[in-house]
């Protein structure tokens, strides 16, 4: 009970903020709750199948299989797989984090996991159509080209900057959360 309370302390604090808004700024309260409610519904529609698939992946896919296709020695296959997994996925970037953790847990390489996160954030295939219609094709193609470059740069630099100790720390978190 005490640990549950501790886990939800920031949430409870924010509920108090909303309560204060309700009395002090009813307009802002109404608008904020409406937006929060919409995002909550989105989250609840996106996350359940992702977590179920991750659970199934965890019990059925052997570590060796993941290492072979997305591990350190997987080369271009791993890079392309990570890129397409990220680009084809549904949901905002926060839904990518548990997926990334599962990949790490099963032996996917650090660089590939970073590529997946990069692709998930900027190269979603259905989004591109939409971007082209609202921002124009030149903007879309330029941004896409630059972002693919950016994904690679961020993945390579992060992989270099994070030393063995940092990575060990991340793997501890992975074990805790996976």
């Amino acid at each position: 009970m005490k640990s549950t309370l501790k886990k939800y302390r920031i949430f409870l604090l924010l509920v108090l903020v909303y309560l204060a808004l309700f009395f002090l700024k009813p307009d802002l309260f109404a608008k904020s709750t409406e937006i929060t409610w919409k995002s909550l519904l989105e989250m609840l529609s996106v996350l359940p199948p992702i977590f179920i698939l991750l659970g199934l992946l965890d019990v059925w896919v052997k570590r060796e299989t993941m290492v072979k296709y997305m591990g350190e020695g997987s080369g271009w296959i791993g890079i392309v797989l990570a890129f397409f997994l990220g680009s084809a996925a549904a949901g905002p970037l926060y839904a990518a984090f548990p997926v990334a953790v599962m990949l790490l847990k099963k032996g996917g390489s650090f660089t590939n996991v970073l590529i997946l996160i990069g692709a998930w954030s900027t190269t979603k295939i259905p989004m591109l159509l939409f971007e082209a219609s609202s921002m124009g094709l030149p903007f879309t193609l330029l941004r896409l080209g630059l972002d693919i470059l950016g994904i690679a740069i961020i993945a390579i630099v992060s992989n270099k900057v994070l030393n063995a100790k940092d990575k060990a720390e991340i793997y501890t978190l992975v074990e805790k959360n996976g």
Partner: protein
Amino acid sequence: MRKHAGIIMGMVIITENIMNEVFYVAAGLGLVFSWVKDQKKTKMALKKAWKSFENILPQFLAVLLILGIMLAILTPQQISSVIGGESGWTGVLVASMLGSITLIPGFIAFPLASALLKNGAGYMQIAAFVSTLMMVGIVTMPVEIKFFGKKATYLRNGLAFVFSLIVAFVIGGILG
């Protein structure tokens, strides 16, 4: 192309929904096959799924509440008033800071960006805004830290921020 934006936006939302449904079907089929093959393992998979969801739920709920207030305060008119075409470097910086507040899915980001463009924001500033909106998330950081630790989270967001500035200058230089 712009006048069809509404239709295409509808299509995109449908495509997103289809992708989401594909996930549901895949999860459902996966569960059925798994159950037929090994009930014990399937129960274990569901238990793990619930455990990892429950584990991250407090952070998610907190982020949603913060996001609600943030988006209620910042309106497109307010934003475009500070990132107009003439706002230059400062506008780009302001745009990237606004974009960095939270991670927003593209189908909210692009209509917003297009509304900003119509309200007089510059291409360079919009590019900074869109890029940071998709890649940098300060409000979502607690979730990210929980999964990857502080250093990796700060590093990813920091690099994405700097990179967004580069994207802005290149796009602004070519289109602006």
